[in-house]
């Protein structure tokens, strides 16, 4: 009885070793690129990667999310080729990277606008940026204060590994979020939560609430935002490219050192006219002249 069992075990081991060895063989000259990080950028990076793979069949690009912090941690630990991030790297992270022998190189490749969303039952149409701060810091917790119904405000935000979470906090709260803020697991969950909740307010990448044909996800209302006194809608493309809409930010990609080889070719594709057109089609915005300038100074576009 014992012998057949051993034979079976041996067979399993042999089979396993065959499987693993056959996996590791890839055609020559074939390269695999890894992109990791920002959840905001996943869908955009995926479309860019797919378009690029159509042009170059010798490249395979894998895009994963997890949040900007996750991507930055991965580039520091040498676990990804490109880190997607919706926020710049902090001083602390750059020095940590240097101590691991990673020299961070920054590319700007698109612009994203954040939409402030409420439930479509909310009578409000717009808010000022300072009011947004008051709401998300938890200083004002009833919609009545803003001319709405007598309803407690429910905050929907991202988790602290999110670049969007940090960006919004550092630029509009300038302090910590209210501890009452719900920390949702990604943009899509904020959308799902706000749709169900008449007292909700949340922030998400505009691409997650405006469909390809320009219509808004139903059940939601996108607020107009005023920096000073003029309410600006993010739904007008010009408002974003001109910089009139206040909640926009560039999207970043970090590499270890100035990119070269296939990584450089992919980044150049993203920055090309074709890549930037794809960026617009995906609900994001092409780089502004100032952003292009920064990339040029860094020695891209050559």
């Amino acid at each position, binding site marked *: 009885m014992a012998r057949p069992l051993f034979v079976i075990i041996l067979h399993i081991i042999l089979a396993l070793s065959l499987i693993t060895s056959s996996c590791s063989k890839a055609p020559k000259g074939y390269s695999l690129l890894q992109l990791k990080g920002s959840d905001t950028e996943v869908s955009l990076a995926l479309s860019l990667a797919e378009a690029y793979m159509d042009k170059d069949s010798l490249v395979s690009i894998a895009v994963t999310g997890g949040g900007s912090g996750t991507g930055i941690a991965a580039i520091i630990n040498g676990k990804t080729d490109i880190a997607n991030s919706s926020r710049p790297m902090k001083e602390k992270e750059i020095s940590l990277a240097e101590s691991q022998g990673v020299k961070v190189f920054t590319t700007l490749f698109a612009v994203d606008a954040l939409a402030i969303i409420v439930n479509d039952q909310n009578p409000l149409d717009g808010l000022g940026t300072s009011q947004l701060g008051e709401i998300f810091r938890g200083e004002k917790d009833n919609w009545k204060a803003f001319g709405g119904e007598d309803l407690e405000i429910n905050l929907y935000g991202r988790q602290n590994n999110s670049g969007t979470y940090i960006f919004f906090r550092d630029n509009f709260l300038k302090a910590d979020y209210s501890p009452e803020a719900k*920390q949702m697991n990604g943009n899509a969950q904020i959308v799902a939560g706000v749709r169900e909740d008449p007292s909700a307010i949340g922030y998400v990448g505009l691409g997650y609430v405006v469909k390809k044909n320009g219509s808004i996800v139903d059940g939601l209302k996108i607020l107009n935002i005023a920096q000073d006194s003029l309410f600006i809608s993010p739904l007008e493309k010009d408002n974003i490219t001109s910089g009139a809409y206040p909640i926009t930010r560039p999207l970043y990609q970090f590499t270890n050192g100035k990119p070269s080889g296939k990584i450089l070719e992919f980044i150049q594709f993203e920055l090309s006219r074709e890549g930037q057109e794809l960026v617009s089609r995906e609900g994001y915005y092409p780089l502004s002249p100032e952003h292009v300038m920064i990339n040029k100074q860094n020695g891209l576009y050559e």
Partner: protein
Amino acid sequence: MNRNRTDRLFSYLFLGAGMLSVLILLGIFLMLLINGIRTFAEINPLEFLFGSTWNPSAYEKASYGIGSMLVSTLMVTLGAMIIAVPLGIGSAAYLSEIAPARVREILKPILEMLAGIPSVVIGFLGIVLLGPAIASTFGLNNGLNALNGSILLAVMALPTIVSVAEDAIRAVPNSFKEASYALGANRWITLTRVTLPASFSGIIAAMVLGMGRAIGETMTVLMVTGNNLSMPNSYFDSIRTLTATIAIELGEVAYGTTHYFSLFAVGAVLFTISLLVNIVAEWVASKFRY
């Protein structure tokens, strides 16, 4: 001769397998402890356990208090047990004592299939189905709260509880029940006074296994409880559990920082809780063993 040799070989093999699981358990605990203990170079242990503000990546000053998350974890677990234990033991009693064989043959596999549903799927249902249902039933603005988490965890713990409790009840010797009937007891009296008490240690084991599932479950609670960091006041509040905190933050944390070590300390706290639950259960069960 040959047979003796294989017998011995296999007894060593199984001894090795048994020792391996003990070693793994020890290894995990040591790793949590060694990494976690370094948190306390910078943070007062009492402040860590009882402080109610957790904000390691704060705008100004980081704080590491797991108090509110500890309460949250205990709250959802307790809630899940309040729902799942009566339901579970009731179904187990029905399946083993009352249900006709055919019904049992259909019901038990269905119940066990419940255990095979991935936790993300259950969490998803919690967001799109149970959340809105809770909100409209209780007149709340949203259903992302501790109650939602408790109900879903109860659903996930149920198959374990039913399955283990049913085996325990079925293992009660027939002679016990026959003696009870012979003394003139009806089925209800026999079930509650004889069969259930006789299987008490097995039922406790069922409860502990179910509770272990509830304490350790991550994905579902992360999705449906809203992950709100403030101290919860009721089951209608959003909460963030210890498991969710590790899952959310470990991916992003920079290696070797206080934040990194503190997540291991959170893991050690979780481990200690489930260890305590197991020890207490073992003790209770041994007191009632027949």
